[in-house]
């Protein structure tokens, strides 16, 4: 961990802790998140943690730029990593099927394995939630095994259904809402990520761990899943 405080905007500072993505970063990012929230109190407008950084938006009617920088330095001076064992473990049921995961076959072919092996591989590892972003409740998770890592689509889809589970490079995620998107889609879950986020209580939080579990169409439907196939639209 090497603390750098960089100007990001008129009343925004980038707190940079690391330079590479690593599951081990999370204990420090979470500890810094907590320490900064406490130190800034009501002078804090927003604090957005990510893989290696925290973007801090403070209220410049309460603190000057120099005061905010000093406050960060002071808050993080004796930082000790958080206990990541306290993160929640989530079991996410996914219906892996080409009708809702139109990239299953391409990702499997690229990796030189069968679709069944691809599903098994995606379900095998426990993934760390690195950051929330892109959409309410959207968690960036990883790291996906190198063998099935697949770059984003050259041309993103204009419509990706809510609940779609995808991978991009060594990351995996679930789309909480219908949106455009360029990730490779493998299946769909009925877990209502958006509804949780809308209540201010996201299901997935940074530092949590997630394991996917393959379920049948019947189970997916019983959970209230939407089986409408993904349409290929340019």
């Amino acid at each position, binding site marked *: 961990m090497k603390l*750098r405080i*960089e*100007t*990001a*905007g*008129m*009343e*925004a500072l*980038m707190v940079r802790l690391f*330079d*590479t*993505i690593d599951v081990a970063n999370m204990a420090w990012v979470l500890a810094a*998140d907590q320490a900064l929230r406490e130190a800034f109190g009501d002078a*804090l*407008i*927003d*604090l*957005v*943690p*990510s*893989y*290696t*950084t*925290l*973007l801090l*938006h403070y209220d*410049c*009617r309460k603190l*000057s*730029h*120099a005061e905010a920088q000093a406050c960060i330095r002071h808050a993080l001076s004796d930082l000790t990593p958080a206990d990541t064992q306290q993160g929640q473990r989530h079991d996410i049921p996914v219906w892996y099927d080409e009708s809702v995961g139109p990239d299953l076959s391409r990702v499997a072919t690229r990796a030189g394995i069968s679709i069944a092996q691809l599903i098994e591989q995606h379900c095998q590892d426990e993934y760390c939630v690195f*950051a*929330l*972003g*892109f*959409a*309410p*409740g*959207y968690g*960036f998770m990883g790291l996906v095994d190198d063998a099935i890592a697949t770059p984003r689509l050259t041309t993103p889809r204009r419509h990706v259904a809510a609940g779609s589970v995808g991978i991009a490079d060594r990351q995996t995620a679930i789309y909480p*809402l219908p*949106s455009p998107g360029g990730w490779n889609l493998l299946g769909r879950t009925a877990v209502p990520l*958006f509804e949780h*986020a*809308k209540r*201010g209580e*996201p299901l997935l939080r940074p530092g949590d761990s997630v394991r996917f579990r393959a379920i049948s169409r019947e189970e997916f439907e019983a959970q209230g899943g939407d089986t409408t196939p993904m349409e290929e639209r340019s």
Partner: protein
Amino acid sequence: MSQAALEIKQAGPLALIQDAGRFGVGHLGVTQGGAADWIAFYWANWLLGNPLNSPALEIVMGGGLTLEAHGEVRLALTGADLAATLDGQPLAPNASFILRSGQQLVFQQPRHGLRAYLAFPGGLDAPRVLGSHACTAREQLGGLQEDGQPLKAGERLTWQGNTHEARKLPEHLVPSMPTSGCRLPLVLGSQAASFSGSSLFKAFNTPWQVDNRADRMGVRLTGPVLNGSLTGIISEGIPLGAVQVPPDGQPIVLMNDRQTIGGYPRLGALTPSACAALAQCLPGTEVWLTPISASHAQADYRRQHAQWATD
């Protein structure tokens, strides 16, 4: 007697309920939203003596948006001149006015600026989600139906208060809409150093055109191609006004409805006042980026806020 209301007789291209924005929820992946020209938005509420953050209407372009009054009400109009008329009579922005039962308010097309703000006594009635009334379509948050959608024909607007003050905006404080050649102050970020010397020179010494790919998420600028040593970065939080430069070298200014995190290198971020000005620029407007220090920008920002501190 039923409550006074405004009925949407005809919806224009985009009219959204907005407040100052949804803050303190960026870590959930929820965008800021809020009035894109926050200065005009605050003036609209100020004119009626409302709390400055009261929900109001952001009207983009006009495009025939027609509102009909049921009951009498005093409203305040600020921001762009969208050739508004009250029962056919021209209505100038930056003032409050009375709309009587049966009268119609129509917004035609932009004459100066792009976004007008219409404030209501005590603020519009609208659901509050995650601490804000801001309407963000992509996230399905806010709006009359709580689906983030803009106003539709047949919907009715009601408001919180029935009393109001009728303040007048002093002549010397009337904000002017940006014109071609306007300057947009930018606070340099740490990644600015990763751009080539000639790109940095061009960024601040050549005019940029506001592209037609511009919305509440971001505004593209076209001009010289900027390049540097970074093509992508590990995704990190995006502040309001961040000027990100994707591989095509054409900057995108990230506005109120931006994604919360992203992975393109950045020159820095426009000040909030510069974002407000950019939100009023029609495609084709020429703008200049000018560097400013964070402390200078903050001093300007505090002076701006001092203008409203009269209540």
